């Protein structure tokens, strides 16, 4: 039950924040997911879903930079 899945919002329905929901695609499967906790999520956004609730809008710009940092370290090492 604790496993979260990333999915993409296809359409949004409802105005009342308590009952606002979205069709979210997980690969080929679509499910109705509550947007109560991600009221600002937009169509096309990817959200992380737990037990039928979107808990976070996934932010591509905040992906980890560790690997690129490591890579530039290695290339510096090679250069010297």
């Amino acid at each position: 039950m604790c496993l979260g899945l990333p999915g993409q919002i296809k359409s949004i329905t409802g105005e009342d924040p308590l009952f606002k929901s979205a069709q979210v695609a997980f690969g080929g499967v679509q499910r109705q997911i509550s947007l109560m906790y991600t009221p600002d999520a937009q169509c096309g956004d990817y959200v992380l879903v737990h037990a039928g609730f979107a808990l976070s809008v996934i932010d591509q710009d905040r992906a980890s930079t560790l690997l690129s940092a490591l890579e530039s370290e290695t290339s510096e090492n090679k250069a010297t």
Partner: protein
Amino acid sequence: MKYVDEYRRPEKILRLRDAMHQLVSRPWTIMEVCGGQTHSILHHGIDQLLPDPVELIHGPGCPVCVTDTSLIDQAIELALTPGICLCTYGDMMRVPGSIESLFSARAKGARIEIIYSPTDAVTFAQQHPDLNIVFFAVGFETTAPASAAAVLMAEALSLDNFYLLASHVRVPPALEALMQNKDCRVQGFLAAGHVCTVMGYHEYHQLAQTYHVPIVVTGFEPLDIMEGIYLCLRQLETGKHAVENQYRRCVREQGNVHAQEAIHKVFQVVDMPWRGMGVIPASGFSLNRHYVHRDASVLLQHAPTTSKTNTNDPCLAGQVLQGIIKPPACPAYGKSCTPEHPLGAPMVSSEGACAAYYHYYGHL
């Protein structure tokens, strides 16, 4: 699938493995807190990629495993009561109570619906006004917002037949309890990324400082876990103990404030029994005084009992959940205890460490 496939690319994972091998100079023991991470580690063979001196031990983050036997007993009692239907996540069905599981109770006529989301239980309550619907609300801070939402929805819809058997657990007090155990071997934590999605990680700074442990908020894909381990090792090797966030694409320091608001509106922090670990102070959520009318214990015929402890219980779940032993060290593992015939919750759950070992390593 986006946000999955790109975090499974072997070349990046191997790049991190090489960096780790260069970095490590001595033995370190790191605990991944979440059972979902344990499964990912064994499934992708991450434990095999680490430098020899680095050991991963598995933590208590399996919600099914830590739910106390007394709660399973109460759920069964409710489900067997005429006029009540228990709605539960499927994972709970085969967890042993002190006498039997929900699964075997259903075979005897207990009324149980397996649901994907608590909202399904609310819908079910709307469709069955003649039945009292009890949602078995278990899990960590990841599922607590969904349970809170179900209560708020039931209020908004004026449903007077919707109840909660609530036993939500909180991660930070459990980590604190682990660190206070004299047998604790943990030198660094990979904190559960999804719990932090909800709660943020501001609570962890104090823990890192008090116990001098680095804590790295980590995601669930193989590349996330490799990065989490690398960042944790980098701190250990340089004598640091700070909180770092590897899972930045999903987790912000403050967490999801809307979800936290709902949790605090509906629940209160209480002491909670953990299976095999005893009562941990302030480690759970139960309904607060504004929502006691939705507490399923009013439907129980008997007062809620504390766990009928079975003194012959061969299950070492408490030690497994605290990372003191690994599953194959349990004498029952793979012999009298298998996923087909589980003796304890960690062999049942899709997030349990015993099930993960059995699935990926077999009898050993």
